């Protein structure tokens, strides 16, 4: 199911003109009509571990731009740690009732970093960031929306034949030592996953909330 979703996403990005995609939200999403979202620090399942808090910071703005109330991540993280949950894995196991007790969110967003890193080949390098997101109804625990995005960026080799291409790969490797290209890719991937225009319906602070929400409900009814 998940790999199918990923496949759709990949196909979608290759074929921008394909038909309207299947809604990623459920009838329970429409019923709940979430206004506020508690985002927990993402689980990093990639080999590298630099991605967690870069990604956590990057998830907030797209959700805000989509019109949702988003609980302040730095405060959420600090409170969780103070309450004996020092890692994202433990935070993801926190009982929903306790989260509702403290934050009273409508929904909880759980994100997994499935891919984070740069692979170097002879003539080029490719950086990838993969994110999977699941939105849970805070009261029932039901999954009400999910989607995934894989962002990637290759080094451009420029002109100059083989020598130029080698230089391109080298320069890219040097630059990468200073700034991880995955950080920019993570921001862009988060935006595609959660921002306006993503498969997540608009939230209540979007000026077109009423019409877009009605359309989202209608799209589900037609199926």
């Amino acid at each position, binding site marked *: 199911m998940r790999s199918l979703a990923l496949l759709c996403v990949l196909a979608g990005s290759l074929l921008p003109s394909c038909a309207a995609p299947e809604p990623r939200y459920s009838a329970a999403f429409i019923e709940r009509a979430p206004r*506020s979202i508690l985002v927990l620090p993402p689980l990093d399942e990639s080999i590298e571990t630099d991605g967690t808090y870069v990604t*956590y910071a990057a998830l907030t703005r797209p959700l805000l731009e989509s019109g949702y109330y988003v609980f302040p991540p730095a405060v959420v993280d600090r409170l969780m740690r103070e309450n004996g949950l020092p890692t994202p894995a433990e935070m993801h196991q926190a009982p929903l009732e306790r989260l509702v007790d403290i934050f*009273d969110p409508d929904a909880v967003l759980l994100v997994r970093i499935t891919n984070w890193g740069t692979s170097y080949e002879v003539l080029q390098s490719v950086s990838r960031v993969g994110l999977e997101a699941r939105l849970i109804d805070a009261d029932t625990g039901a999954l009400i929306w999910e989607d995934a995005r894989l962002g990637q960026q290759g080094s451009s080799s420029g002109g100059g034949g083989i020598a130029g291409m080698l230089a391109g790969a080298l320069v890219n490797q040097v630059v990468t030592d200073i700034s991880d290209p995955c950080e920019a890719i993570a921001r862009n991937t988060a935006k595609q996953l959660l921002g306006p225009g993503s498969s997540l319906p608009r939230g209540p602070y979007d000026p077109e909330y009423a019409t877009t929400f009605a359309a989202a409900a209608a799209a589900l009814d037609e199926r």
Partner: protein
Amino acid sequence: MRALAASALLACGLASCGGGSSRYTYGNYEAQIFDATTGFEGENQERIGELIQACEGTVERARGENRQVPPGFYVHLAMLYALEGRLDETAAALESEAELYPEGAHFATWMKGHLGMDAEGGR
């Protein structure tokens, strides 16, 4: 050091897309989130002071632009005030959040209780 470089990058990232029609006045909120989750182990007071100043600047700018700071921003600022022991300002920031965004009112009240302030709902 690495955290600093990353937050500088985040700030650049925000600056480059700041010209669009964003819903809120963000200031350096994204960089702040990164800093506050990774950047001040050991409660670096000087750094916290800088973050507070940046937040206050963002609130001012929002006022000048006749826009709002994003949901959660005032609670974030309240946390920073609390870390400096500035409890009057902590309470005021929590109240601003609750007034501006009703979805955050429950948590703002909980925070007051958590910090030992006069509020129901804490435990």
